[in-house]
């Protein structure tokens, strides 16, 4: 999809990628490195002083070790949050820019390049409520205030969409009526044909099971099995996942979806339930390997769908801003219980399923 014309962007002095320390294969910015670089005194190449957080409730979506998320948030000189809900991170912001939901705004075109290339117009179904604004409007207004008007040569985003659509042989007017348009495939076959010569993007041009690149950096050229830590006595591995109706943690406050599932449950194998004398529906609290205790209780669900050595909960619950009226305090926030983050030394990817929790049947806040 051709980009709407604008003057060349100047080259930034440094990028998020430049914050990566000792991650030889990280070819883009790594969230945990940005968080680390926001805390004064940490070993970093550049100090990060401000965040602009768009549509991500960080305290509920990015687990960190040693409370680094909160340390970073407190150390920031300036925090802007753009969101459609008053999520917890908005409570820490210096400025909150309320965005309208995707059903109330034009967005970038959906451009699907795969089997059958197609474009789709994402258009509003309703007017924005109160003072909420589309993302493009927020971006443009900030640009204008910064004196960067030359980068925003449009009054309304539909002008950008119309220009782009005309480049690919349709128009805003046409797409408003048809919504989705399939385009002929011009980029060759979707799959590598049987028997065809194909050069992979590796040094040898072949699929590499043994990586010379890794060996040259003193790393294992082939994967070596590393045994993962097992839960200590009376602790369970904490697993988390999604419920199909709640694709994001923010959807837990949507009236219809909240009606379907308003809190998460702690999946416990019935055999474990018998030993621990737990009943389905019973509220419990969790404590993890670092003695972090959950802010809220969670109801037990005895089910054969979980292993004996693990417990499971759906991500996104345990909302911690009272303004999230339907979902505040319902269930446990998995991110809060994840205080050990395993980092892949090659590219900085994170693994969060090495945390262990034990079950508290009494409210720990009352016994203290």
């Amino acid at each position, binding site marked *: 999809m051709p980009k709407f014309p604008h003057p060349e962007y100047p080259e930034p002095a440094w990028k998020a990628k430049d914050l990566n320390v000792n991650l030889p294969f990280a070819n883009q910015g790594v969230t945990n490195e940005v968080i680390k670089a926001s805390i004064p005194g940490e070993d970093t190449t550049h100090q990060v002083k401000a965040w602009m957080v768009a549509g991500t409730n960080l305290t509920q979506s990015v687990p960190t070790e040693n409370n680094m998320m909160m340390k970073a948030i407190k150390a920031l000189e300036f925090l802007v949050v753009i969101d459609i809900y008053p999520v917890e991170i908005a409570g820490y912001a210096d400025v909150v820019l309320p965005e309208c939901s995707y059903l109330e705004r034009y967005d970038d075109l959906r451009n699907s390049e795969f089997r059958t290339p197609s474009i789709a117009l994402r258009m509003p179904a309703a007017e924005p409520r109160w003072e909420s604004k589309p993302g493009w409007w927020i971006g443009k207004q900030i640009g204008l205030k910064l004196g960067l008007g030359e980068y925003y040569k449009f009054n309304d985003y539909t002008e950008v969409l119309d220009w782009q659509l005309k480049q690919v042989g349709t128009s805003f007017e046409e797409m408003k009526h048809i919504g989705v348009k399939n385009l002929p495939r011009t980029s060759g076959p979707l799959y590598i044909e049987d028997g065809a010569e194909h050069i992979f993007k590796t040094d040898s041009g072949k699929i590499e099971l043994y990586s010379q690149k890794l060996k040259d950096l003193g790393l294992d050229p082939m994967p070596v099995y590393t045994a993962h830590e097992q839960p200590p006595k009376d602790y369970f591995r904490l697993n988390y996942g999604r419920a199909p*109706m709640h694709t994001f943690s923010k959807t837990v406050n949507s009236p219809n979806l909240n009606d*379907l599932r308003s809190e998460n449950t702690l999946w416990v194998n019935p055999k474990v339930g018998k030993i621990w004398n737990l009943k389905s529906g019973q509220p419990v609290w969790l404590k993890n390997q670092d003695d972090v205790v959950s802010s809220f209780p969670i109801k037990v669900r005895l089910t*054969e769908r979980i292993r004996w050595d693990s417990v499971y909960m759906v991500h996104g619950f345990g909302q911690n801003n009272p303004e999230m009226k339907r979902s505040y305090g319902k269930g446990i926030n998995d991110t809060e219980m994840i205080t050990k983050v395993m980092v892949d030394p090659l590219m900085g990817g994170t693994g969060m399923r090495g945390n262990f929790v034990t079950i508290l049947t009494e409210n720990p806040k009352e016994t203290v």
Partner: protein
Amino acid sequence: MVIDTLKCLGCSDCVVACQTENDVPSGYCRDWVTESVNGTYPEVAIELRSERCNHCDNAPCVRTCPTEASHIIEGGIVLVERDLCIGCGACIESCPYDARYKHPDLGIVDKCTFCVHRVKKGQDPACVSVCPTNCMYFGDLDDSNSKVAQLLAERKYKVLAKEAGTSPNVYYLI
């Protein structure tokens, strides 16, 4: 209606579609998703079912209704005539599928209509039309060429509460 339990993810899109299409009051539903877990870990089988009124041929709700508000229309859909319903709830008690509820504002009994207002226009019921995995099929079982009839001819299926003898018309492929 034929529902493929092997394709259902339990997303409950069918529930929200029905609620919005039919102005179902908040906290109530005409269709819902049931999860049944069989076996013990690690030999566990999970079945997800989108459930609703079974539009039975031998409908106990119709037999127990004192005012003939509950009735079967041509084609087999079971409906409640709102003007005749006195909200006595006998049909709710008699339904083996627990598919009916008393409307909190109107005081009458409400349930799935197979979106008869859409079906009359040749459209699928709302739940069928939104299903992201296309696990639901709606059609005429008396027509052997229909998709629903073909699926029942080819696939293994079951109905719910067969022992109740209601001759239900929602079939689950298993």
